[in-house]
């Protein structure tokens, strides 16, 4: 899981899909179809905490006593959840952006896939309603999806503890890609103006040594 997590850290920043844990990817054509259907939306790195909570709920039996674990694959603008059950085959559910504001959960359409029943849909929907307090779908413009000013990004120590050096790299990438505040930009502007004025004065005032 560590490697998958680290790949996710960087990949999500650039808008690529990634797996939090072990879920099988969709076929490329299906992935493209979904990407085309909700072109303007993406699941960003910020959704990862919610899906981790969903996985913890599965491990602690809150998704049903027969469910031992949940694997989650996060793609550009949809997610695939596998409920690993103790005695039954895996149930696959597809999470896509919601087309209407009716029903629960508020942000996802949950569609049953292979081996999933209406009961599976209902309990995953309940869990999603609980773990996602805000819409995880963001406008999908690759690097423009980066963490917004004020969004929590794990510290270096936390990143190292959870994912080693790869985790640190991932967090550094998130810090690098994150949006900046207006005060930062104003400081940069002051620096640029000073540098440009100095450059122009240097060139206009310079003379050849010959």
């Amino acid at each position: 899981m560590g490697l998958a997590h680290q790949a996710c850290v960087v990949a999500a920043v650039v808008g690529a899909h990634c797996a939090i844990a072990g879920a099988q990817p969709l076929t490329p054509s299906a992935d493209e179809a979904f990407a085309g259907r909700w072109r303007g939306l993406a699941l960003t790195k910020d959704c990862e905490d919610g899906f981790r909570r969903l996985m913890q709920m599965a491990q602690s039996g809150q998704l049903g006593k027969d469910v031992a674990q949940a694997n989650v694959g996060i793609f550009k603008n949809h997610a695939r959840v596998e409920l690993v059950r103790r005695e039954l085959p895996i149930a696959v559910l597809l999470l896509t952006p919601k087309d209407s504001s009716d029903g629960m959960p508020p942000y996802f359409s949950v569609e049953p896939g292979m081996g999933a029943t209406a009961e599976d849909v209902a309990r995953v929907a309940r869990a999603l309603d609980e773990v996602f307090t805000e819409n995880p779908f963001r406008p999908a413009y690759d690097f423009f999806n980066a963490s917004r000013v004020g969004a929590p990004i794990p510290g270096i120590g936390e990143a190292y503890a959870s994912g080693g050096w790869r985790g640190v790299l991932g967090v550094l990438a998130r810090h690098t890609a994150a949006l900046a505040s207006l005060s930062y930009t104003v400081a940069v502007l002051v620096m640029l103006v000073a540098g440009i004025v100095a450059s122009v004065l240097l060139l206009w005032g310079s003379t050849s040594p010959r």
Partner: protein
Amino acid sequence: MITGIERTNSGTGAGAGSLIPILCALVITLVAFAWLDHVNPGFLVSEDGIRDQLLARDCTDLGQCHLIGPRTSVSEFQQGAVWLDLLIAIRLLGGDTATVRTTVFALMALAVGTLCIVIWRWVRPSIALPASILLIAALSVSRDPIQLVNGSISAFPDVLTAAGLLCYALSGRYRFIVLSAFALGLAINVHIGALSLLPPLIVIAALAGARPWRALFAAGIVLVATSFVTSRAAVLANVLALVKHGNLLPLLAAALSIALVSARFGRRFRSLSSDARAWITGLILIAPFGVGVLWLMLGREHFFDFRYLHPILAPAAALAAAVVWLPFTLGARWFAALQWIPAAASLAVAATMAARAYSGPAVAGLIAAWPLTEASVIADQATRLGWSYEDLVFRLQATECNELLAAMSVSAPLPNPVPRDGRSQLQVIKVRRDAIPPLLDLKDVVPLEGNMVAVVRQIGSWMRPDRLVACRRSVSSQGAPTCSVASRPAPETRRPEQFLFATRSAPGIHSLDLPTPYVATYEVPLSPETGASRELVIVDQTSPECGWRFTRVDGVHSDDRLPASRVRLHSATGESGLLVIEKPFGTTACPGNEVDNRYPPCVFEMRKDDPLMAFLAG
């Protein structure tokens, strides 16, 4: 090789003589500004320009500042954010798009003045004028400035970079290599094409300094720091793209090799005459660009455009002027004034061109049908009428409706989370102030600049754009058409915390791709009023045969012969109907290379006896 015919001002250059080049450069700067302002009238509204304005608003209005610019035409590589920084600075100081335009021309003119004074003082005064005039001519060709996109100001940091490298090559003073590295850090993050100046920076840093590794280290630190501070997200994106394609290590190895080879030849270079070093520097500044262009066109099958020449415009202008000047130096051995013949000739040509340009008819620029200033006025009026920008998608009836919609996004307020329903649509038509129809409600009239006004009014539309279906039918194959519901922006894109440049600047509403030739259609459901008539006109016709035309009306009565660009509908029962609009793309009869912008054609809708009818009669 050139021998010294004249001496440049040397040493401290104190006295009246040192003021002459400054005065000359100032005059050239002012002339360049006036000329560029004259040959670039108005704005050309482009998706790129609008996107950049919205990204700047994210920063100034919402405090969310992007450290990355838009995606480049080379996949996965991104522009930097320095152009956005300029837009942000102007917005913070209370400027508008007109201020941006003035600033762009001022920076371009300053680039010309800088080239003039550097060539004057470091190469030859007699080359400075022709080189400056050539650079003005080259900058006049670009269409970027009137689009207000990042390439608009590329010339400025490019010239600073090249000028700094020339000064370093001729003097070996570290301050110039630091200046060049700083300017290149800006230039790359204004437009990534300036990367072609990176090899010259490495080569000249290694060639011209007595301690090449120290110069390289200083330049590298300044370049990376400038790039990172201004555009760290773009740096990350581009490094990740290089890593993904396996290009990072080969490029680093190539840079190291270039530095090693250059350092080896440094002593020999420094022993050359300053004229020889100036020629070599000019060639070094240009050569990598040619290699880059070849790689781009042959390796990536990328198109080429004049706008990509910006990194070499200044060195090419200086070299071209020097080549023209060279023969005259032979005669100048006996008569020194001969060397000024190219300068006099270039001045005469420039004066003639200017006389023609200023005395002739106004320059026919690529003027937008809806300049940003007018679109801003209309956006304000739409807001007063209760329209959110996102609700206007498909619901704006005007000439060049797609362009007006995009232009309005620059000044439209943040999205309203609650979509607007109902059959109301917004109509906008521009008329002369003295031609306002007498029956028109004057509260619908909004003054624009000059003698123009816009009629901005709402109409209960018969069309149901929320149920539009877009189709494309291949002409060469007999297969069924591919169709898509032309969906409005998803609810999630109505988040009132971002200006959503992508959906605003390019409100494309389907993703049907089909190679030409094909026929594009829009099926528009109709919901008529009982016992009423309505006239629908497709505006923006490119040609009668190849433009958009109504081809079918179902469920609603019409006496018109179809296809037509104007149709009169009458509904006795109020039953729903369907209107089909279509246009061929790339067929034998319509072979033009028109862009299918994936947005429905602009249809204007009028009631019987509408006072605006006369304005659309043509």
